[in-house]
């Protein structure tokens, strides 16, 4: 296998990797700005310098020449090379800043030059705390500034598009955003204008940066030049907790991170998953954070005096639920699962009601033809269609659904906005007694008779199967009135929980929603109905599903965490409806 020596240590490699990616993969650090593993390497920031040499080979024999100590003679490249564009060859010798004074000085010089026109915006810049420029200046940069003349001024606070704001002075012209629109999203909306140190990224005259993936450029921008207009000035990075989860606005199952502070989700950013979305995320998925905070239903409510919904207690809600069920036969009850809800929620619903006597279960698909593109948007607007189907819910069209509701006396609806989506009218729900388990206050929840609030994805650990048959799980990021970060084993410890003082950990109880996970509701309902079903935590429910349902064979939370999601067999991409 070809070998390479980096800082005196020997490594083997295969194929034709670029030097910088190889160095990073082996746990060493070389500073860089313009390089991104998914895009072309333009080598224009000049920060990733290394000193490279190749061993001298005898032209005829192919043998390496040796010096008097028996070491290979190395011919060093006269100039230092940028490792992001350097191809590795057999026998190459590399010195990074750790073992070479020259390289460290070159990196320091580049840092100094980047900083001379960079504005001193750190106190007001969103990027502070997650800024590669800050980190690399601290580690590899000069100690002070020798720049005693005027800095270049460029437009600040430019509305590049509906979601992205540009601050041209902060830009270091790494061209990551331009290459993103050229190579990844394909819209070619950004370019660099002007020449020399007056250049900055811009759209064509009169055009907006309305790329459906525009906010990814905010993630990849190494400085605070491109910022999210929605998130600007909302919170500092170190105040927020970061929790891994899944996107629920579409069927792709994009891996995301939820950022919470004071129990409110403030933003979503993509999480790397090489099998699903790599580094990217569609813009519409980022706006989902509003649904976790706003318009939440806190405490159950019952309709009384016509259309008024009055808040009631949990005891009363469960009592009403059970009474209505006991008054009818199982055949009169219509149970609707949801592709918008997780596997565990649908399973617990199904298990309880099938134990009670209901024989068939339905769900309404949420597909918008032509909505998807080849990238991360799919026609399927729901995150768990495949999961719901695999559990045994049957896909029901709008007409069949309306007919079924007409002939039912009690309808149980799990977390699906049927009226808002246009599948049903609120008139259709007037006749039977409708119980909805919902997260947000919508037209649908307002049309139902008994509304019981359940946890949304930000508040529970649960699994979702995407359009390609991959099962992935969320972690709870928000506390409810009944969960506590320090006591819930599924929740990760927040930064302020570990390091903060009592003054940092302000708690606003209003941000905690009075809701419960579906399976716990089913537990209470089962007890009241005298059934012998019992559900544990969502982790235990998944183990139960894995052992009883062949589609979910071998699935467990540990395995999903280890492998970043599991591809379920029997759900090929061809069989999928999307």
């Amino acid at each position, binding site marked *: 296998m070809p070998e390479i020596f980096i800082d005196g240590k020997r490594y083997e490699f295969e194929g034709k990797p670029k030097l910088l990616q190889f160095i990073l993969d082996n746990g060493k650090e070389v500073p860089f700005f313009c390089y991104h593993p998914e895009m072309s390497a333009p*080598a224009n920031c000049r920060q990733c310098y290394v000193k490279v040499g190749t061993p001298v080979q005898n032209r005829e024999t192919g043998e390496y020449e040796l010096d008097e100590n028996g070491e290979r003679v190395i011919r060093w490249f006269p100039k230092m090379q940028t490792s992001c564009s350097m191809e590795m060859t057999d026998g190459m010798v590399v010195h990074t800043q750790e073992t070479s004074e020259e390289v460290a000085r070159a990196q320091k010089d580049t840092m*100094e*030059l980047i900083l001379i026109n960079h504005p001193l915006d750190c106190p007001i810049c969103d990027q502070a705390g997650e800024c590669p420029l800050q980190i690399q200046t601290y580690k590899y940069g000069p100690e002070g500034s020798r*720049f*005693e003349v005027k800095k270049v001024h460029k437009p600040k606070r430019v509305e590049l598009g509906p979601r992205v704001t540009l601050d041209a002075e902060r830009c270091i*012209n790494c061209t990551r955003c331009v290459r993103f629109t050229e190579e990844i999203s394909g819209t070619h909306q950004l370019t660099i204008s002007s020449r020399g*140190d007056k250049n900055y990224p811009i759209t064509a005259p009169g055009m907006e940066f309305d790329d459906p993936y525009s906010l990814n450029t905010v993630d990849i921008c190494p400085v605070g030049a491109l910022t999210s207009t929605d998130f600007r000035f909302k919170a500092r990075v170190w105040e927020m907790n970061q929790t891994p989860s899944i996107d629920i606005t579409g069927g792709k199952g994009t891996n995301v991170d939820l950022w919470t502070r004071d129990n409110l989700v403030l933003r979503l950013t993509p999480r790397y998953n090489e099998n699903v979305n790599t580094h990217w995320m569609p813009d519409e998925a980022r706006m989902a954070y509003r649904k976790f905070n706003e318009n939440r239903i806190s405490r159950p409510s019952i309709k009384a005096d016509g259309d008024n919904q009055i808040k009631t207690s949990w005891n009363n809600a469960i009592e009403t639920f059970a009474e209505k069920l006991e008054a009818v036969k199982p055949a009169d009850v219509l149970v609707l699962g949801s592709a918008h809800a997780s596997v565990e929620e649908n399973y617990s619903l199904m298990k309880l009601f099938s134990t009670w006597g209901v024989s068939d279960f339905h769900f309404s698909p949420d597909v918008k033809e032509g909505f998807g593109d080849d990238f991360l948007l799919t026609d399927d607007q729901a995150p768990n269609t495949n999961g719901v189907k695999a559990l045994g819910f049957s896909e029901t069209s709008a007409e069949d659904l309306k007919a079924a509701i007409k002939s039912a006396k009690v309808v149980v609806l799990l977390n699906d906005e049927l009226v808002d989506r246009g599948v049903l009218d609120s008139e259709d729900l007037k006749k039977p007694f409708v119980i909805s388990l919902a997260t947000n206050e919508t037209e649908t929840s307002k049309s139902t008779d008994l509304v019981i609030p359940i946890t949304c994805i930000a508040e529970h650990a649960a699994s979702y199967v995407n359009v390609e048959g991959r099962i992935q799980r969320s972690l709870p990021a928000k506390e409810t009135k009944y969960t506590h970060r320090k006591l819930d084993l599924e929740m990760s410890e927040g930064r302020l929980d570990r390091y903060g003082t009592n003054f940092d950990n302000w708690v606003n109880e209003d941000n905690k929603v009075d809701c419960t996970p579906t399976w716990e509701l089913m537990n209470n309902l089962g007890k009241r109905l005298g059934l012998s079903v019992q559900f544990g935590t969502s982790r235990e429910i998944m183990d139960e599903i894995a052992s009883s349902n062949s589609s979910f064979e071998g699935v467990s939370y540990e395995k999903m965490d280890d492998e970043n999601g599991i591809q379920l067999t029997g759900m090929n991409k061809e069989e999928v409806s999307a």
Partner: protein
Amino acid sequence: MSFDWKSYTPVIIPDIPNLHEIDVYTKNGGYDSLKKVLSNDWDPEKVINEVKAANIRGRGGAGFNAGLKWSFMPKPDGGPRYLACNGDESEPGTFKDRKIFEYNPHLFIEGALIAAYAMQCSAIYVYIRGEYYSWIKMMEKALKDAYDKGFIGKNILGSGFDVEFHVTGGAGAYICGEETSMLESLEGKRGYPRVKPPFPAQKGLWGRPTTINNIETLSCVPLVIKNGADWFSGIGAETHPGPVLYGISGHVNRPGVYELPTGMPIETLINEVAGGMRNGKKLKGLIPGGSSTPILTAEMVKGTNMDADSLREAGSMMGTAGMIVMDEDTDMVEMLWRISHFYHHESCGQCTPCREGTGWLEKILLKIRNGDGEIRDLELLIDLCSQMEGRTICALADAAAWPVRYTIDRFRDEFEARCKKSTYALA
């Protein structure tokens, strides 16, 4: 070297009226070299060897043996191959290719055609800077005449060799004279130089093998074919032979373009060929090959000849042979600031050291020029030069740094006198 320059007969810009008309050109032996090369006795390899032996060193500034550069092209694989002719001519002090476009365009066209034949190219692109609008029109006319006479196109002179020839104009960027930047501009993109490797001979225009040559270099090719490699390599200096167009400008009585052999003593060029220093002033400094080349003091000019080796020994470079002559009244600080201003304006902005460095250099020099500079600013300037040289994608940063470094080095007293007295050490 004693040489009777007055008896030299120019061959690149001969003294024949209306030589730009194709009929006058062909009557004076024009396109004979092309016919010779397309005949059965010559094949592409022979052409390359002849040109290599003649040692035509690139006249665009780098001075690389043209025939050797041609031999870097890979074997034909059936796809298109290109010859790109660099007529960007933006180096300050350089104005020689303009003469060829105006007075002898067909010599260049013939040279390009021979080169395309040697490298088996399918198309030739000549890139002329946008500011030369009239000369672009002249070139278009000359090409049309050559097409009409059958010297360009399909099956040229019945030889089976096809080639197209296109003119493109630039849009006002010095950086587009850099070869890979010129290719980007030809492709219609922003003129950002490319990272090398891969080199243009492997991956040039649209990813295909491409060779880039200067206009004057290609103009020498028909002369070599006509008179032989030995004739060419016998003219002028031994290691840097051939006729060359000297562009003498500045404080002389007769600035202009003069065609003479390489290796002329600089003093002869200034005092005799260009009619001597203006107003009888003394020489203070000379930039020998365009503003990127280090400046020579009057002392260093003595005994130095205009060829690559002699100039390198003296501490400068041949460049484009665009000589800028400065007399004793020249303010070196002002001159250096103006050159830095040029490089700051022309930096493409792709990579950090040049984009930020050229701006910083100019701003410090402006400070010194206005009388606010301090001694430590001079040390800072030299330090910055080290930060820029050799660290960038193309050589513009080197071209910006060398004048600063060498002018300050060789005219230190003048710069120090301009600075305020300062006892602070460099921060």
